[in-house]
Structures are given as C-alpha cells and as structure tokens.
C-alpha cells in the first residue's frame, strides 16, 4: 500500500519535472524573443526620433496648430511618435515570443487562446487610454468654459461630461472584449435612455412653468437699449 503511494508520488513529481523541463525552452524562447524585440524597438524609436527631428516635425506641426498638441500638451509630437513605434515593436515581440513559446512547449491551447485574444486586449487598452484622455480633456474644457460663462453648476457639468465619456468608454471596452456583450448593450441603452428621459421629464414636467414663463418673457420683451458698458477690456 505504502509502496504504491510512494510510486504514485514519484510519478507525479516526475511528471511535474518533465512538464517544467518541457516548458523551460518555451519560456527561454519567449524571453529571448522579447529581449531581441526590445532592442529592435529601442533602435527603431531612436531612429524615428532622429529622422523626425531632422525633418523639424514638431515645428511643422506647431505651425499647423495640430490637434495632437492640444490633446497631449506635455509631450512633443516627435516623442509621441517615437513612443508609439517603441510599443508597437514591443507588442510584436510579445506576439512572436508567445508563438515561440507555443512552438517550444507543444502546448497550443494557452498560447493559441492568448494569441487570438491579444488583438482584442490591445484594442481595449487603446480604447481605454483614448477614452480617459478624451474624458479628461472634455471635462476640463467644459469646466473652464462654464466658469468663464459664470455658470454656478460648472463642476456638475464637467463631472457629467467626464462620467458620460467614461461610461461610454467602459461599454466600448467591454463590448470589444466580448465580455457579457448583450448585458452591456442593454445596460448602456437603458442608462443613456434613462438619462435622456430623466432630463426630458425634468424639463417637461418639473420646469414646465419656468420654461414657458421664460419663453413668454423672451417673446413679449420690448427691445431695450443695451446698457453702456462701463469697463472696457480692449
């Protein structure tokens, strides 16, 4: 009895070691591919940056008031392009490394699944990043614009815009990852529809008198002369 248990344990340990031994070349191949592509990515980014600097890429974009500068003000366009090249190369390295891992380990399930899912994952990360950037930019734009228009609820407006964009981004990310697609579509539709309906009801019922009074006032108001501005800014 004891011998049988011992034998089974030995066989299990052997299988584990065999498995590890089989995986090791794959892991090694993965890291090797990653290292090579890291070097390639660094070199490619460096070369692209040098070429763009030589072409005075930043100056040209500045003259044309590129939207890229507005969206990412702390980075120069050359740096941004350099970084994009770097990460694309590195991503390619991960994909190649995974293929090498798959070939070396002869286990196609994990790598195949990951490889098939990787583009979606990358797309989702990109959507998330862009969504965050857009949410931050738009909320700040709305906040500053509303403050300059003397709107007391400037922060509320700004937060509303931010969350609207973030919710939209989250829905897009989940949809892109094919995670509970049906539920996300439904929930998003209900949420947005609900917000619009709530606003319509708030204006139509809650503020009906206010709106009608305001409209009547606009229609019946006599043309008053505009008071002369005492302060002249320019």
């Amino acid at each position, binding site marked *: 009895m004891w011998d049988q248990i011992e034998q089974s344990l030995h066989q299990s340990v052997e299988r584990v070691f065999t498995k590890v031994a089989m995986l090791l070349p794959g892991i090694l191949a993965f890291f090797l591919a990653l290292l090579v592509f890291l070097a390639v990515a660094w070199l490619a980014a460096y070369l692209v940056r040098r070429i763009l600097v030589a072409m005075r890429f930043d100056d040209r974009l500045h*003259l*044309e*008031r590129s939207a890229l*500068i*507005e*969206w990412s*003000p*702390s980075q120069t366009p050359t740096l941004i392009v350099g970084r994009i090249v770097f990460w694309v190369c590195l991503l390619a390295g991960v994909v190649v490394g995974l293929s090498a891992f798959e070939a070396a380990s002869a286990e196609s399930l994990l790598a195949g699944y990951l490889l098939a899912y990787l583009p979606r994952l990358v797309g989702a990360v990109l959507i998330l990043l862009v969504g965050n950037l857009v949410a931050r*930019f738009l909320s*700040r*734009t709305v*906040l*500053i*614009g*509303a*403050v*300059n228009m*003397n709107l*007391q609820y*400037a*922060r509320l407006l*700004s937060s509303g815009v931010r969350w609207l964009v973030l919710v939209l981004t989250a829905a897009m990310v989940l949809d892109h990852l094919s995670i509970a697609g049906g539920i996300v579509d439904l929930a998003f539709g209900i949420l947005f529809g609900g917000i619009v309906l709530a606003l319509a009801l708030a204006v139509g019922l809650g503020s009906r008198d206010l709106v009608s009074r305001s409209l009547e006032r606009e229609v019946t108001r006599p043309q008053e002369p505009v008071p002369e*501005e*005492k*302060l*002249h*800014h*320019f």
Partner: protein
Amino acid sequence: MTERLQVPVAVEVQNERSGEADLLIGVASPVSVEKLLTASRAAFQSLALAAPSLRCVVAYPRDPQEQPSENGAHPEERPGLRFVPYLPPPGQPSVVPSLASPASLRAIELIATSAGVGACVIVSPDLAAVDAQTIQSLTNPIFENQWDLCMPVYATGALDDLLNKSILSPLTRALYGRRIRSPLAADFGVSAAMLGTLAEGAAGGRIGSQDALVWPAVEAARTENRVLQAHLAVRHDAQNEGLDLSAVLAGVLGSLFGEMDRNASIWQRIRGSQAVQTSDNPTAPVAASDAVDVRPLIDSFHLGARNLQEVWSLILPPITLLELKHITRLAPDQFRIPDTLWVRIVYDFALAHRLRTISRSHILGALTPLYLGWVASYVLELSATSSSAVEPRLELLAQAYESGKPYLLARWRWPDRFNP
C-alpha cells in the same frame, strides 16, 4: 505659400498702374468702403492743404465676390489720391477684428513696395484715425526725422483699455525695455523699411500662424528699430464691444506668450526699461465714469477659485495658490490682488504656456477669472482716489513687472527647480 499667391491679385492691379506715391493708408480688416472713401477724401483734402504735392494710396480689403475693375482705376479717385483694393487673406478673421493680421499686413506691404511709398499708416476699420491730424501725427516723425515706427498714445479713461493696462503694456515694457503705452495698437505709423521687416516677420513664421497678431512694438524691439509715440485724440470705443472676453484674452495673450517664447534670447538680456520719446501734446484724459459695481467681477473670481483649483494647481506654485485662497476670504470692499502676486501669476501662466503644462487653450481659459479679479481690485483701488492717481498707479504696476522679471528669468531657465 498659398497665402502669398492670393495677394498679388491686388498687386497686379497696382503694377499695371505703377507710379510713385508718398503715403499709404492701409486698412487691414474688413471695412465699410463707402465710409472709407468719404473719410479718406476728407483727410486727403486737409493733408493736401499742408502738402499740395502729396500723393496718397489707400489700400483696403475688397469684397472677395466683387471683381476688380478692368483698368484698376477706382471711380472715386482724385489727382494724388488712389484707392487700391486687395484680396483679403482667406481663413478665420483675427480674434480681435480691428487688429491687423499678418496676412493682411503682407498684402499691404506688397502694395506699399509697389507704390514706392516712404511711410505707411495702418488704421483701425472704424476709421476713427483717418483724419489729417492723426495721419500727420503718425507719419511726420517718419518723414521728417527718419523714425521707423510711431505708436499711438490714446486718451483713455481709467476704466478703458484694461487688458493693455494690466498685462500687455507693462509686460512688453518689462520684457523688451521700452515703455510703449499701446504695444498692440490698431493704428500706427511705420516706415517703408520697417513695414518690410514686419511683413517679412509675418511671412517667415516669427509671428506664427495665420490667425496670429502683429506686434509692431515687439518687432521694433527685436530688430532694434527706432520707436516714437504720438498722442492721438482718437477713441475706439464701440468697435470691440460684444467680443467674448475669454476668447479675446486667450487669443491676445496666446499671441504675446508665443512672441515671448520666440524672442526669449532677446528679452533675457534686457534689464530695466527706457522711456520712449512721445511727440505732440497729451490730449485731455477722458473723464472718469460713474461708480462701477465690482460685485460680478469678484463673483467670477470666486467661482473660478472654487472650481478651477485643479487647473490652477498645475500652473501656479503653492504659495500663489495660498495667497489666492486668502484673497477669496476677504470682504468685497477689501478685495485686493497685490501687484507682486498679479505679476507672478502672469509670469507663471506665460511659463505654463511655454512648457505646455496642459493644453494651451485650457491654460489661457483659466486666466480669465484671475484677470477679472485683478480688474475688480484695480477698480476698488481707484474708487478711493482721484483720476490723477491712475498714471502713478499704472507706473507702480509696471515697476512690479520689472522687479518681478528675475522670477520669470529663473523659472524660464530652470522650470523644474523647486518652487514652493
């Protein structure tokens, strides 16, 4: 390049009829042609009394739909007076429509070169400056004493021209060392050579994109041209009414900060300032208007302080934010923004604009509540003094800009250094 191809339509007309002229009156913004013809004829008649041999060219932007006449002659022309319409530059108009855009200035310069004029007067489209006395004030120093640029000194009230008084004039004085009262004037006289320099600056990209503004006083300081000022009895009250304050503030300051960035190697070497010679007698100052309710201005400042802390904290150092916080707690009648604080705020915004700490449109937009706070503080301060105290008050502000320049220099050169 496309811009430069658009302009010669006017010059073709001019070349066909090329002839010498002495003076060019240029309007750089859309203008009522009827009003221009009437004002120009009246001014020319008065000028011709003093100088019968004067030959004058009036350049103005024509309606793009209108076709130039076959022989180029304008039916309203008189001997010695010619009208040359030019095709206005395409694209968005300037953020302040009364100010010359670089493209319009290039068109006027081409006409001036073709006509071989000795001096040129750029006038605002409200044509308040198109009268004999004003034109003489702006051009006589150029004709007689070979000055390069003649900038106006307008007779303004204490509550007029506030953007210029709070930022434009004292900042350009501190940077470029010349005490010019209106560095961004709608009317100015310029020699043919200096006009060429201005237009060259516009074409060469120093003035920047097409919707940038032309800063003649800055260009004169950059190229070390001789500048004079002339007192003018001209007022431009109505022409800029209705413009959005934050948009104008962003446009004008964005352009000025851009000039700062381009000319950093020049203004970093300049210390102190020198008075600029001013011709003619000062015109009577405009009487002080009634009391102004500063409550809305202070409310705008408080609204900004409540909501824009996140943005301000990216631009201003902690000590400035703390001082602003103290100011928000002051009672309305004690509301004051000290000059030193205001100067540091302007310098920090200029630096943030240079470093692109956040989007430039956000940086410039976030300055509006602070500017309104300064206006409130200035109005409250002046309400307790007589009208004669305005000039000394503005001189103190200008000196604060000058004494704060080392702070700007330090932050400009070492922006990452610890700044509490």
